[in-house]
Each structure stands twice: as C-alpha cells, then as structure tokens.
C-alpha cells in the first residue's frame, strides 16, 4: 500500500496539469464562497449570512464544493488516461506491478484526493462558520456535520465514475468529453422513466448526496427551525423542491454504485490488453 501510494505521489505531484487543476479547484472554491458571502440580498427579511452560519454551512459548503468535484474527476481521468497514452501501465506491469496493483494505486489516489477536498471544505466551514455565527455552541457547531462525510462519499463517487470512463475509453480527451456529456445524456434518459425510477440513476444518486440547500429557509432572518432542528418551511410540499430519497438510502445506493464502478474497472483492467 505504502509503495503504491508513493508511486502515485511521484506520478501526480510532478505532473504540471495536476498541480494546475488542483490550484484552480482550491482557488475557485474559496473564490466562490468569498464572493457569495459578499452578496447583499435586497429582499427584506433575508440575508446571505444565514448560509455561512452553523449548522446551515454544513449543507451549503459541501453543496458548493460538489460543483468543483468535476475538476477532481478531470484530474483523475487525465492521470489514468496518461497511463494508457504513455503506455506506462504496461511498463509498470512489465516492471513488476500486478494489474490489481494498478487499480489499487488509482483507488488510493482517489481516496487521497477525497481526503484533501474533505479537509479543504472542513477548514472553510470552520473559518467561515466561526466568523459568521453568533452565540455559538458546540452542539450547534456539530449539528449536520455528517454532511461533510456524505460529501466525501460523493467525491469518491464522481472520481470512481471517472475512473470507469478512463478505463473504458483509455484516452484522456475522449474520456473527459464523454464524462461531461454523460451528465446531460443521463438527464435525457431519465426523462423516459417514471418519476419514482428517475431518482435511482447513478449521477442523480451521487449528485443528491449534497442536496441543494434550502436557501430560502437558510437565508431567512426569521427562525423557521422547529424544536426537532428541521425547517418548518416545507418547500417540497408547495412544489418548489422535488421530493428526493432519504439521505441514508441515497448514501447506501451511492456506495453500491461506487462498488459497481470499481468492480467494472477491475474487470476491464484484468481482461483487456494493456
């Protein structure tokens, strides 16, 4: 494991595109949360500050960060695609790695990147949350913090899907284009299914791990949060937000999809010539 991790570290850290995309990812995320924090909503009774306070920030920041997961997936596809283009997967096997090692190395990479983005969001949440929340309590701080772990699973979900695309098409540009195209394609395919079934498609499940925050509730300066900690303004009920699966079930299905993406990637690398 340590050896595979070291190999991936050498391969990634010396790759200019990796460094560039990671810097873009980091800067864009902080830029977006900073710029949004400066917005002033002119609607009386609403303030953007509510999104930056505990516990709302645990929902808002992972949701913002989820949009940038595409960068992380492109980084992953680029690195795996390079292995095929430079025929270095083949060389690694010639030198003594097994085909399983190749996949394990990339999964370690995915895990490491997911930890990085987890830490990035965690630090951002703590900084912005502590600055913007008044009368903070420890319980308030931890409330909904589990959403960050759900975001971690989402990052892994997107990247394992990217890994599958890279393994299937073995070409960086083609894999990235098809991965991006898969978003609208799955959206169109979903239209042919009943509302109930639409919620179970892979991208739908993975994207729903960080659901769109109830911005209206969070930005409201009136406290609509009931004694159970949930919003008393049920926007789903009035049709503003679509009804989704419970988060626990979504996590479970997403984990199943992640396992499926990894399993197919393993089969592909074992069955096909390098």
């Amino acid at each position: 494991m340590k050896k595979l991790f070291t190999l991936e570290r050498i391969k990634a850290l010396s790759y200019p595109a990796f460094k560039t995309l990671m810097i873009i990812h980091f800067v864009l995320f902080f830029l977006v949360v900073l710029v949004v924090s400066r917005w002033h909503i002119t609607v009386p009774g609403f303030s953007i500050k509510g999104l930056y306070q505990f516990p709302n920030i645990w929902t808002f920041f992972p949701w913002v960060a989820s949009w940038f997961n595409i960068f992380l997936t492109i980084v992953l596809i680029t690195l795996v695609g390079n292995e095929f283009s430079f025929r270095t997967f083949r060389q690694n096997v010639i030198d003594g790695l097994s085909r399983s090692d190749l996949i394990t190395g990339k999964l370690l990479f995915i895990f490491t990147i997911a930890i990085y983005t987890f830490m990035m969001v965690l630090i951002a949440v703590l900084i912005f949350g502590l600055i913007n929340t008044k009368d903070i309590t420890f319980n308030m701080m931890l409330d909904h913090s589990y959403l960050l772990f759900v975001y971690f699973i989402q990052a892994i979900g997107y990247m394992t899907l990217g890994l599958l695309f890279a393994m299937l098409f073995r070409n960086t540009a083609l894999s990235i284009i098809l991965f991006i195209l898969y978003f609208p394609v799955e959206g169109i395919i979903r239209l042919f299914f009943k509302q109930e079934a639409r919620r179970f498609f892979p991208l739908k499940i993975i994207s729903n791990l960080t659901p769109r925050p109830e911005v209206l509730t969070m930005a409201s300066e009136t406290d609509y949060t009931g004694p159970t900690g949930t919003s008393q303004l049920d926007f789903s009920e009035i049709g503003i937000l679509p009804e989704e699966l419970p988060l626990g079930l979504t996590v479970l299905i997403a984990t199943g999809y992640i396992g499926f993406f990894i399993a197919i990637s393993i089969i592909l690398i074992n069955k096909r010539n390098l």
Partner: protein
Amino acid sequence: METILKINNLSKNYGNIRAIQDVSFEVKKGEVYGILGPNGSGKTTTLAVVLGILQANGGNFQWFGEPFTKQIRRRIGSLVETPNFYPYLTLWENLKIVAKIKDAPEDDINYALGVANLLKRKHTNFGHLSLGMKQRMSMASVLIGNPEVLVLDEPTNGLDPEGFAEVRHIIQAQAQEGKTIILASHILDEVEKVCSHAAILKSGELIANGKVGELLSTDETVYIQAEKLGELMVLIQDSDLATNVYKEEEDLAVVLKSIYKPTDLSKFCYEKGYPLSKIVVKKQSLEDQFLQLVK
C-alpha cells in the same frame, strides 16, 4: 544447465488474426538468446505473453521452472518495444518509480544511469531526450534491481550506428557478467554479433532454433550450370553433398555441407554424366540465409 524460460506450444490471436502459433523453445542460463524474424513475425507478441502483458490463447510457459508470478517478474528486467516512461518526469524520477516497483535500492538508479551513460542527464525530463538517449534510458531501467534475466525487444530500434554500438556494448557487458539475455530483433547483424542461440519466427510460427553458428552458418554456395539442370538438381538433392539446392535465375545454387568442397561437387556431377559448363563459388551472406529461411 538450468532452464530459465521454457515455452510450450504458445499461441496468441488478435481476433481472427493469428499472431503466434504453437511456438516452443527453451532458453538456458547464461545464453544470449535471439528471437529473430521479420516485422510482424510474432517476436513482440511472444515476449509480451511471457512477460504477462498479453494473455495467451493456448500453450504455456515457465520461468525458472515455475509458473509466472509477481516474484518471478522481479527477477527479469524487460524492455518491450518503445521506451515507456512518464515524459514529464526526470530520468531520476522515472527510475525511482521502477526502483520502487522492483523493491530495489535507490543506489541502483545512479548505477543504471552510469551504465547507460546518462548520469549527467538525471535531472532532464524524459520527454526532452533524443531517441537514442530514450533507448539507453530503457536499458538503464532494465538494469534496476540487478535482474538475472534481461528481456530486450528491439533495443536498438531507430538508433544511429553510434547508438546501436552503445546499446550493443551494454548488452555484451551484461552477458559477460553472466546474465541470461533474450533479445528480439529483426536485425540479423545484431543477433549475429550478440547472441549465442536464436529462434527464427515467420508469420507467427517457429521455423528454426538452435545455436546461431549452426542456424546461420557461412557455408559456401556454388552456382553451377549444366545440361538438364532439373535432373541434376534431383541428383544433388538425393546426395549427401548439400544442405540446400535451389534454382536461381539460370543457375543452380548448391549450398555445400561444410565437409565438402566445390571440387567434390564438380567431380560428383561429372561422374553422374552432367559435366558442368559453369561453376562459381560464393560465400553466402547471413542475410541471404536468413531471407531464404523466412521466404
């Protein structure tokens, strides 16, 4: 002598295309074994299968008398086809990856770069090297971990005469150290100068194997003319004089066995009632013999 590699009836297809068919041969310890054949004859496929890069469709192979495993792979240094390295990494970083994979000490990197005469370039990106340097870099990577066996596929591919000589010098030096070397090439001169044994492949089939000296001997070829050349050809074929007899334009080409001389052939023809009107003796080049074998 210990058998390093034993291949039994190995076959590999790419869809409907037969790449190799029932190829069998053995490589013994200390041999420099050439796999010779024209482009597309199955040399690279054979090596790719025995190195676990491609899956065989039939047959089997053993390294050191055992099935191929990860541990055995580390006893083999391999260069297959073009050099495959990360172009954005330096030579040192690329070899560090190889050393990590092979669990070899980092000291090996400087040694290998030194042997390949690339020590001064250790901090240059691989992508910035010339073709000759890239090929030498491949040789350096093969040496990491001090493997017992070197498997080299076209190691002088695309090199100029100087680069060719440099790589050949490295191979010969490794052979002198007692390493077993398996060298695939379509360049006869390369095999002749470096190898002790060879297998010759043609269209995926093994057509000959053995000691290079026996496979590609420098026997004399005698070009003769006489009346009724067809009848004389049959007589010579039935005799013990020649290893090969064939028509070449107006002449009959007779490859004499090394124990016979052209005068023996002339005497034989005269005694059989076919006096020769022309007799020209030529030493057959290795290239002629190779082309004849793979024709």
